[in-house]
């Protein structure tokens, strides 16, 4: 579980952006989290609350947008949905898949006051 390190990385991005923009407070953070990314959503949310305590983002709402997974299937020559790593192509049942979406871990925007 490396979510603490990820939460700290997130906090740093948020704090830097808030400071650059003269914010007194960060009230919300919107995160894009791909369903195939290396992160457990609940653990990240827990760690975010822990690292923001007492800082500029104290009590900020963490909004997580889950980006669905998608892969390129070579035999099908098509983009197909992928719910989790290890799943077969829903069209041909094979695993010649290259992930093309769903590994994102990005801070999209923050709400500041």
């Amino acid at each position, binding site marked *: *579980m490396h979510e603490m390190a*990820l939460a700290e*990385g997130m906090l740093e991005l948020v*704090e830097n952006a808030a400071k650059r923009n003269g914010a*007194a407070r960060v009230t919300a953070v919107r995160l894009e989290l791909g369903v195939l990314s290396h992160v457990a959503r609940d653990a990240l949310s827990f*760690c975010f609350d822990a690292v923001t305590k*007492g800082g500029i983002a104290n009590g900020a709402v963490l909004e997580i947008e889950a980006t669905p997974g998608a892969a390129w299937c070579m035999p099908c020559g098509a983009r197909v949905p992928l719910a989790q790593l290890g799943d077969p192509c829903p069209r041909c049942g094979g695993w010649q898949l290259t992930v093309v979406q769903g590994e994102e871990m990005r801070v*999209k925007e923050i*709400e500041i006051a």
Partner: protein
Amino acid sequence: MCTTCGCGQGETTIEGKPVEAHEHVHRHDDGTVHSHPHAHDAGHAHDPAQGHAHEHAAGEHLHWHQHADGTWHSHVHGGGTAHPLGAAAGLGGAHAPGMTPTRMLQIEQDILAKNDAFAADNRRLLADRGIFALNLVSSPGSGKTTLLVRTIEALAGRLAVAVIEGDQQTSLDADRIRATGAAAVQINTGKGCHLDAQMVGRALSTLNPADGSLLLIENVGNLVCPAAFDLGEAHKVVVLSVTEGDDKPLKYPDMFHAADLMLVNKIDLAPHVDFDVDRAIAYAHRLRPGLPALCVSAKTGEGFTEWLAWLERGAAAARAARDRDIDALHRRIAELEAELARRASAGAAA
């Protein structure tokens, strides 16, 4: 420290010396925020989740505000008091703590941006010096250190090897590596569950591996967390031992998805355990189509011919890439010198 996972910060050591110094941000009762650097080896420990208190006299803070119309102003804050409206009068309503209008700020930054920037620095340094770096990942007990020891001994006189060892505690692994005569640096992550690129960057400056050498980074034994962190390596090599079960790739998909080579270790024990090598490789291929796999035994040396050949090919390629870069720089210098000479002679003729 995170009570969910036990990951911590400020506990990393390299060769037993503390390395972390980090920024602290404070929010005061009047809503003001400031930050200062803070080193844990200064004899002052605290729980990072709690923050700590500072005394400030009322009126000592200068505040900058941006109003809804985009204008900025500054004023001295007397501790939570509201103040008269300035340039923004009539635009955003009362300007008082707790009532400041909010606004959205686009960031669009990867959470791992900082790690990835350190990883890019490491990768550049390694490329400049023609060093072939591998990040070895596995569960605890897969035999990584024994594999490294045998690899170093087998490569003696053929290829210089340096090692970065990652463990939560102890220098036992680095000690085992040093006993082979190879240079090694131990990173202790404390409660941390993975190596990150900044730790590896610091270890690299301590280790200073030889140009054209092979750098083996043995990550913390953990088949989950190290998958997310680029260290600046050429490849992640996942080690799976036959005593662990052939279904492990499906149980821990992230790591097999991130790897460029799989070593099936302790292959000498395969007849004694219920492990189907073909099935393990087929499962890994569901996560990473075409992932090359080698069966090895760090105990008997089985499969080492192929493994060592793979290492030597990678190291040779890293050296060749560095040589090409240097040749290109020499050509560029020659072109610039020719250009300078041309201008000098044109000047003399004029």
